[in-house]
């Protein structure tokens, strides 16, 4: 069966190569049948990779321990769901998964545009399939998931495997990588359309209209992947951290930042024909940073807790990323005249300028993360001396930047397009500013003197009020004009411009997340010992150890502590943190007990027992406001989904020119 998988991959490689050649030849020779053939090859690549993936998943679930990949990442005792997720649990399988996702995206992009952009599509197909060729090439020739275990001249069956890392046997980890990959891989499509538009010098902003929803959806996947990873780290790693500034975490953050900048600045190009070079740079940077992210994960270039083991793929990834960067830079520089802005900036105090500034700060933040991630590698290469860059560096560098970004999140919607007068600024800023100052003053009076936290909470209030005011004013206007109840007017308002008001909801989600991040300034931590029946006080909680129970299933053994949680003398909860010992991998892992509330989480990690077995050791944490991070995600998800819904009336933005006034900023087609 593994031969079918290996053959499918080999055929997919050949067809991807054919697709690239046929697309380019068809475009140059003006032979439509070659272009159509190239597009059909895209579907064939998808079908073959689907077959290969099905074969691998089947072998993983069946437990065919003749295969090196199956033996390394599964064992008989593992639940079926984790046998399935082992598809992306190791280097070779995850490369196949990546290739399959890219093939799926390519097939969808090709199919949905089969009658559009006939001039541009051959280049789109060529770019997508070149990227596909690289990844399929890796699993064909360098890191095959269908490699069998060989001893001497014979194939051997080891009987049982080593199993998946215990850290990965958790539900969020089962879906975190696919979402992240959906994000990483998805950025290839907007990149391909952007480059194709550039190379073929398409008039207008066709590539933006086509890929806007694609970019938003991909951004949502990336956001979801990142948040799932944070949720996993918080629940599984046992210290309550949701972000450790590990190079691989940073690698997922960087394309997210550039994609966020792109989603903002692309509006400038759509509405005003400005920032064309910048958008091209951002969409390319997002794609290249996605490739960099997977390079960091797979090549051992940087020391990371997430990275796969050292493997022979490093030189191939390095070559690909350098070549892709050079070609992209060449394409952009060669076509600079085509990317000239159509209009000029009227005022520094305008939304256009605000977008520019927002992009600048986002890029500075991205650079700080990139620098911190790669500097140890550069330093070692230049001086031979090793250096560690951990959380303290990132916190110190990124907190001011993040606060400024939060400020811009609130300011952006308050500034008008083209130009804002001082009076309109005063009117727009007054209420949100007062709200922010009231929050700061109230918190300061109540005894909070952490400067960054005060600023952050104040800015959260500022942004929150500015967004609510936008909804309030718009809804009230519709309510008065059309005699609708306020909730219906708010619904109508949102539906009329889903992108704008969905965007505001996304901003609201970010505000909630910042509330959660800021809470970390007040974390409490202690490590304590408890005997059976003994109690202790931690913060305003009382904890009593009721029992320690042992158990076992085919996959692991466990020791579970049962703790009674009380507050003000009243029992409020029971937590059951446990230690698991996985038999196959011989690894131990903790599963924490968490009491989640909106104001704070009580977090208990059962870390072991004292040498004389007299007491259990617990690491105790109080994490204020952390739940707001997860709430913020749901709001962000809701807002993004709203952005993806077509508006009630389709908006068409005529190019505004700096020649006096425009009669209407936009026309509405019913």
């Amino acid at each position: 069966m593994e031969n079918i998988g290996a053959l499918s991959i080999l055929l997919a490689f050949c067809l991807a190569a054919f697709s690239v050649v046929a697309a380019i030849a068809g475009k140059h020779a003006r032979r439509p049948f070659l272009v159509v053939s190239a597009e059909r090859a895209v579907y064939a690549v998808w079908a073959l990779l689907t077959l290969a993936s099905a074969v691998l998943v089947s072998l993983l679930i069946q437990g065919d321990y003749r295969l090196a990949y199956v033996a390394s990442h599964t064992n008989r005792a593992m639940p079926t769901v984790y046998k399935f997720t082992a598809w992306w649990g190791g280097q070779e399988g995850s490369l196949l998964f990546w290739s399959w996702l890219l093939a799926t995206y390519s097939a969808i992009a090709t199919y949905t545009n089969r009658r559009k952009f006939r001039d541009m599509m051959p280049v789109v197909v060529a770019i997508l399939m070149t990227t596909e060729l690289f990844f399929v090439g890796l699993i064909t020739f360098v890191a095959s998931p269908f490699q069998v275990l060989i001893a001497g001249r014979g194939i051997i069956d080891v009987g049982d495997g080593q199993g998946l890392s215990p850290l990965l046997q958790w539900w969020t980890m089962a879906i975190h990588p696919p979402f992240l990959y959906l994000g990483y891989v998805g950025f290839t499509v907007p990149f391909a359309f952007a480059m194709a538009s550039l190379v073929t010098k398409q008039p207008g902003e066709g590539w933006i209209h086509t890929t806007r929803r694609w970019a938003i959806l991909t951004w949502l996947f990336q956001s979801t992947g990142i948040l799932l990873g944070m949720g996993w780290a918080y629940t599984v790693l046992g210290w309550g951290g949701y972000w450790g500034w590990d190079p691989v975490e940073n690698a997922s953050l960087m394309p997210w930042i550039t994609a966020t900048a792109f989603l903002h600045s692309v509006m400038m190009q759509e509405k005003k024909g400005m920032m064309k070079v910048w958008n091209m740079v951002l969409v390319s940077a997002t794609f290249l940073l996605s490739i960099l992210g997977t390079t960091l994960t797979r090549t051992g270039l940087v020391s990371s807790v997430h990275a796969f083991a050292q493997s022979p793929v490093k030189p191939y990834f390095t070559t690909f990323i350098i070549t892709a960067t050079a070609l992209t830079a060449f394409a952009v520089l060669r076509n600079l005249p085509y990317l000239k802005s159509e209009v000029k900036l009227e005022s520094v105090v305008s939304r256009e300028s605000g977008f520019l500034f927002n992009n600048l700060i986002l890029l500075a933040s991205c650079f700080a993360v990139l620098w911190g991630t790669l500097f140890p590698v550069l330093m070692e290469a230049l001086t031979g001396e090793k250096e560690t860059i951990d959380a303290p560096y990132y916190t110190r560098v990124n907190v001011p930047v993040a606060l400024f970004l939060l400020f811009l999140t609130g300011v952006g919607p308050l500034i008008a397009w083209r130009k804002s007068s001082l009076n309109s600024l005063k009117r727009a800023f007054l209420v949100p500013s007062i709200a922010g100052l009231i929050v700061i003053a109230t918190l300061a009076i109540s005894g909070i003197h952490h400067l960054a936290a005060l600023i952050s909470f104040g800015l959260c209030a500022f942004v929150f009020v500015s967004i609510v005011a936008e909804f309030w004013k718009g809804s009230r206007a519709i309510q008065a004009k059309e005699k609708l109840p306020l909730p219906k007017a708010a619904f109508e308002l949102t539906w009329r411009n889903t992108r704008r008001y969905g965007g505001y909801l996304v901003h609201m989600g970010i505000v909630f997340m910042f509330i959660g991040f800021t809470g970390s300034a007040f974390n409490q931590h202690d490590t304590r010992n408890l005997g059976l029946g003994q109690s202790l006080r931690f913060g305003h909680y009382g904890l009593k150890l009721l029992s320690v129970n042992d158990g076992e299933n085919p996959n692991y053994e466990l020791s579970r502590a049962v703790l009674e949680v009380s507050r003000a003398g009243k029992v409020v909860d029971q937590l059951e943190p446990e230690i698991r010992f996985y038999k196959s991998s011989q690894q131990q892992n903790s599963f924490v007990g968490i009491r989640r509330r909106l104001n704070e989480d009580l977090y208990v990690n059962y870390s072991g027992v004292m040498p004389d077995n007299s007491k259990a050791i617990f690491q105790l944490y109080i994490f204020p406001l952390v739940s707001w991070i997860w709430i913020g995600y749901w709001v962000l998800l809701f807002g993004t989904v709203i952005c993806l819904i077509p508006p009630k009336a389709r908006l068409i933005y005529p190019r505004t020119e700096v020649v006096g006034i425009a009669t209407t900023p936009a026309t509405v087609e019913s």
Partner: protein
Amino acid sequence: MLRRPRLWNRKLAAAFLLAMTAVVAQDPTSFLTQDVLRVGDKLACRCGGCRNTVANCPMLHCSSADPMRRRIYQMKARRMSDDAVLNTIVREEGVVALASPPAQGFGLITWLMPPIALAVGFLIYSWYVRRNRSSPEPLSSADQAIIERFRSQIERELDGPSAPHEIKPGPDSRT
């Protein structure tokens, strides 16, 4: 007394007990004093399993953080200052022991580059704005009147929806 975890497989039991015994050879919580946590917060845990500092590494028996906590504890017991403890460790193990690079020598570049990048970005922004900025042509009095009409209509609709019937017909406000 707590019961040990019930183990059925002897080999597994031996491995588990060995691991547990090794890790609890000495009460690791006794080293977690405020002094140790304060100094440990400036040192990197280098076990390879996390990216925490020596202070907040969650593994009580971590191969990197635990011995380092003990060393700090001993040095603090000898009444060494925080800086002296850090200098001793850096002298012996190099700057790689620190959680973030020192603001001197090559390490200074780490700290300077992000603000420099921001400053360069700001210069580019200023240059772009200056190069692409142009004032609109002066408006005629008729244009001014139209703008005023729209502005007052917007203000009425947004701020004072009490008299919607007074709004004069104009371009659709949905835009």
